[in-house]
């Protein structure tokens, strides 16, 4: 089970004066900082899939980067299987498998070389790697291109190799940031099947997406983010009253538009005070 409690992260603004004078001011912009995520809490039990949705800039990627250990939170904690983990040590990164549009493989290395390299970085032995690669090769069907360089692969093949890389160290939880963005139908299918496989094997999966139909298809739970905060976190049915796409879309849109209006009002008030 993955639990996030009160996670917050702020970034220093490159040019606070200019940001303060901006017409389209974001309420998360305060003083010299931009509060990207504030007190975000969500949880995903083992064997369930949590979908994370929200408009662009809502803080989804920052939340998932915090969860993966790439960024360090200013506040809050991450608990995996009941054990709070310090984001500064390697243990969190060892337990999480992370995949996003900005996590790529080394193009000049073959698929196998990439997998072996990352496996070794996670401290795996040669024998453990041999076994793991053989298993993943079967699950993700990459035996045909295992010895080909990544630069020579199609986007679908790359995504399969990248998924294998994300789970090479047998993580206890999987975090995927928009894993189907830019993929064709076949490659998308591979990703969705993989998520389903992980769920069946009892691994909690958190993934962000802009495709609501993927949420309907796969998710047991839903978390909705608006302006750096979680505005909903619970079973999918509890959000829109059903698992169907249309009610989900309508509820999300209504919430997103209300949030945008609220953000504009807060931004205007802050600008007026400034």
């Amino acid at each position: 089970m993955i639990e996030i409690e009160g996670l917050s992260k702020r970034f220093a603004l490159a040019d606070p004066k200019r940001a303060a004078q901006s017409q389209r001011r974001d309420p998360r912009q305060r003083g010299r900082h931009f509060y990207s995520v504030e007190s975000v809490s969500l949880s995903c039990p083992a064997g369930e899939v949590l979908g994370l949705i929200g408009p662009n800039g809502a803080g989804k990627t920052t939340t998932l980067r915090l969860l993966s250990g790439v960024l360090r939170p200013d506040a809050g904690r991450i608990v995996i299987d009941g054990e709070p983990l310090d984001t500064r040590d390697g243990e969190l990164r060892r337990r999480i498998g992370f995949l996003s549009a900005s996590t790529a493989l080394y193009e000049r290395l073959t698929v196998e070389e990439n997998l072996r390299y990352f496996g070794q970085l996670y401290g795996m032995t040669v024998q453990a790697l041999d076994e793991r690669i053989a298993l993943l090769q079967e699950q993700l069907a990459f035996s045909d291109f295992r010895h080909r360089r990544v630069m020579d692969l199609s986007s679908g093949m790359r995504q399969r190799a990248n998924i294998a890389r994300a789970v090479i160290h047998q993580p206890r939880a999987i975090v995927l940031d928009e894993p189907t963005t830019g993929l064709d139908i076949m490659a998308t299918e591979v990703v969705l099947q993989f998520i389903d496989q992980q769920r069946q094997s009892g691994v909690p999966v958190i993934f962000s997406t802009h495709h609501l139909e993927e949420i309907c298809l796969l998710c047991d739970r839903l978390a909705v983010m608006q302006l750096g905060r979680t505005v909903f976190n619970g079973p999918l049915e509890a959000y829109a009253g059903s698992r169907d796409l249309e009610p989900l879309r309508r509820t999300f849109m209504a919430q997103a538009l209300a949030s945008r209006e609220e953000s504009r009002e807060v931004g205007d008030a802050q600008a007026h005070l400034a």
Partner: protein
Amino acid sequence: MLKLIWLKEIKDLLRDRKTLWFVLLMPTLIMPALMGGALYLTSSGILDKQNETLDFQLVAPPAWRDTLGTLLDGHEGLRWQRELSLEGEAQWREAIEAERLHFVLQVPDGFDPDQDHPSQWQLYYNQTEDFGQYDRIHKALSPLYEQWREEHRQRWGLTESQSQMLTEPVSLTMVGTADEREAIGERIGGLLPYLLLALCLIGAMMPALDVAAGEKERGTLETLLMAPVPRWQLVLAKFAVIGCASMLVATLSLLCGVIWLLLAGQVFAVSFLVTAATTLGAFDIFLILLLILPIAFAMSAMLLALSVYARSYKEAQNYMSPVSFLIFLPAMVGMVPGMELKGGWLWAPIVNVTLAIKELIKGTIDYSLLWPVFTANALLALILLAFCTFWFSRERVLFR
């Protein structure tokens, strides 16, 4: 872990043709070929100029025109354009500029070799095109000068030595105390460290661009940052790759430079090249590389810090170009005549290395001075590496 990351980075870099081109082919083949080609073109151009036929017009009193013209025409590659009769300086200048003539020799009206004072002749020529070819005019006229001098001597009743006394009262023989090595070192000693440092920088640039900004752009840096490896280890491994590439370029450049000089010197029978190549012994080469080492490391740390700050490969290139002047400008100090390895210069990074290498090549180095030189540059490298490690740990830098 450090070794694992280093080995992977090396493998990745070696599969990149751009790196192969810049790190291996450039110092071994491309640079020697470019420099040899440039040297060949320059020297053959100068030789062509020195040997070209010089067309001239002679403006002289009628009594002397044929005598002087005949003496010059056909001698020392001079060709008299007898039919050409340009009037006045403006027309001569125009003809020389248009390269219809190479020079105009003007002998004043009323010239008389028997007069008791020297005659003022004028030679119009394009001095910017002078590569020594105009000396041939003096050579062609010298029999005539000799004849007139002899006639004056006899007329004035002077002995041979009295005549010589009048023209050259003192004969000064220059006796050089510097040996051949020192002389060669003075001539090329400033250029070699400059070239080596420039090559080190170029050798470090490609890997530095690739292992940080390139990885950021390709998305592999974030993948790497997720691995449970301390960031300082990532920095050290990447830094070591850049440092190795830089030193590899320096070593190959130096060794290939010596080999190519020897080959070229023997094939074209140019003794200067052979002497220049054999001036440096194995120990000198070792010391030169040892002095270059901390600079290569300092450059590697600096370039890595810039590269990791940049959002993309292109942005990193933009940062690196102006920063490279921080290396080039101090490296040029070694070429300034009169600069010596002493005082404050001993502790001035980069400058002290160029001066020390110059002294090494000249064979006049005081070996005890190498410690402060090495220490100053090693300190600089350490400071830059520490900064780079700190820089690499900042989220603001990694995720701009």
